[in-house]
């Protein structure tokens, strides 16, 4: 196989790129079919949403409102012999969040459905971490010594939107806001504290605004398909 034929078989941009770089190398079929061409998951690149698909969507809206933001500190813990007390050591920034009295959910990693309720009843600073003890409200009947422990930390009341409403787009965060029934516009927002379920809104939205939660990605895709050359936040978009 001659190099000329191989070159002619390339997409024009690849050939031009090779000429422009002036590397002096020929690029053959193996180069055109590079490692990444095979490993790149194509199925995430070619998905499209038709108008009929979008029309069948059931959109869910949620109001922008003041809500309690929570951080769930997850860690592994050991259950004592009595099956009552969970013990763990938490390091890093999360350690500062833990207080006695906080609610805890605990479950063995193998558990599919059983979640045990508990409360933090002792927090003691150690050299490199904070020792945390929590007491189960009942007795665990699971044959397990190690538990996953979620300590629920209330961070306070904030103006917030559900996390699932936010679409990350480069370094921007977008939500779709209902203008009036059936009409949605993208809105860039500034965010603060990111909780487990809700994210604090610093700018871009007002209390009472209705934002799309379930279905926001489909609206976003539909919006971009219909207006590929328009700014993402500049034009109203009608969705039925």
């Amino acid at each position, binding site marked *: 196989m001659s190099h000329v034929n191989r070159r002619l078989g390339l997409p024009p941009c*690849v050939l031009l790129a090779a000429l422009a770089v002036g590397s002096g190398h020929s690029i053959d079929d193996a*180069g055109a079919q590079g490692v990444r061409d095979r490993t790149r998951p194509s199925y*995430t690149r070619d998905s499209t949403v038709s108008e009929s698909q979008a029309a069948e969507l059931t959109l869910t809206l949620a109001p922008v409102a003041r809500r309690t933001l929570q951080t769930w*500190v997850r860690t592994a813990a050991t259950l004592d012999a009595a099956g009552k007390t969970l013990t763990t050591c938490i390091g890093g920034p*999360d350690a500062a969040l833990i207080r006695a009295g906080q609610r805890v959910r605990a479950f063995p*990693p193998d558990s599919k459905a059983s979640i045990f309720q508990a409360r933090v009843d002792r927090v003691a600073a150690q050299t490199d971490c904070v020792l945390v003890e929590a007491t189960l409200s009942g007795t665990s009947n699971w044959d397990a010594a*190690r538990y996953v422990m979620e300590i629920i930390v209330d961070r306070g009341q904030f103006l917030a939107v559900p996390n699932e409403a936010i679409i990350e787009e480069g370094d921007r965060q977008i939500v779709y806001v209902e203008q009036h029934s059936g009409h949605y516009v993208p809105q860039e927002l500034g965010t603060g504290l990111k909780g487990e379920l809700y994210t604090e809104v610093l700018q871009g939205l007002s209390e009472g605004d209705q934002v799309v939660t379930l279905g926001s990605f489909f609206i976003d895709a539909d919006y971009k398909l219909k207006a590929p050359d328009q700014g993402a936040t500049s034009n109203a978009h009608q969705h039925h």
Partner: protein
Amino acid sequence: MTISKLAAVATVVCGASLSPWLAAQEHDAHTAAGSAQEVKITDPTSVVLIVNRDSNDIAFMDIATRKIIGSVFLGNNVNPHMAMMSHDGRWVVTGGTRANKAYIIDVPTMTLVKEIPVDFAPEHLAFSPDGRYYYQGNPDGDSISVIDMVSLTEIKRIPGLVEPLNITFTPDGTKAYIGNYGAHWVGVIDVTRHELLKKIQIGEVPGVARLDPERYLGEIKGVSNASISNDGRYIYAADGDLGIVGVIDTRNDRVVKTIRVGADPWRAFMSHDGRYAITVNNGDETISVIDTAHNEVVATLEAGPDMTGVNFAAGKAFVISATSGFVYVYDMASLKPAGRIKIGVNLQLETATTDTADQTLYLASSTDHSIYVIDAETEAVERIANVGLYPWGTHIMESKDNYCH
């Protein structure tokens, strides 16, 4: 069977001693009055991880017996891409490309403990040197997910990247370098704040190579990996379109030299002694050997098509040619070809890991669902069949050749 008995048996089988962490865990289990989970792996260095893309699981193969101990099923249509063990051997993490999730596996019990939603198409990943964070690259989301290994949550998503493929932390853990395959620059992440600090352009980008990543992502062959020197001082970033390796000084994050290599270099692989960086050049089916002391190419050698990786063992470099069924061998003392190993015909070879003794390679072969064990000294090959469906890669804790493609 109690934990202590099982651990003792497993220790004998694996021929290894308990690590301090596992000993502590065994102690914890004692205190739980027999209500412990079964410990299946007592020594995390005794196993090879196998990423089975199409059976959606991570399999654990015992190095001593070459038997599959077990596997952890992740879920339907997950398509795991790469797996890595935490530095303490406690966790295995993997990204499910099709599920858009990260998965955390507890190693001793071989149990899936957490699924974490991340951005689109997670593939390659890395742990910070202190083990606190696991960075998951999301090439289709153009982002990195920062997973906190204490809380096992995504604490931040770093945007602004372009098809980020591989992540390289500096030894001190202060920075991470990101190879952007959809662009011609390396991203520098401040690991303290988990923010993109800087974009380092690898070389002059002429003509249509300066394509807009937003529109021509599939046609750009940029930087797949930022390979770091042993002392952490320099980054070697190969750029596919440009046919060069940019050498970045990590002290000031500037390109101090660009080295012309063969056409379409996939990435640079660092020899274990740090003397050489080898690029596999799929555009002209060569490898370029760079002397890292002088940052210049000292050998350009013929190789095979569709090269996916390089492993170093027994004083040789083993270059995987995915579609030819051969592994090409080079003597690292003379920097000359030393033959090739025929693995088989009609195979699709993927990537390999090397054991910590630098003696044995474990090569994933996807289409025949096998792992090929290569003795680096004798070049004898043993096939381990039926490891799972479409094995995509392998991993050994503390190996110097843990990479993916």
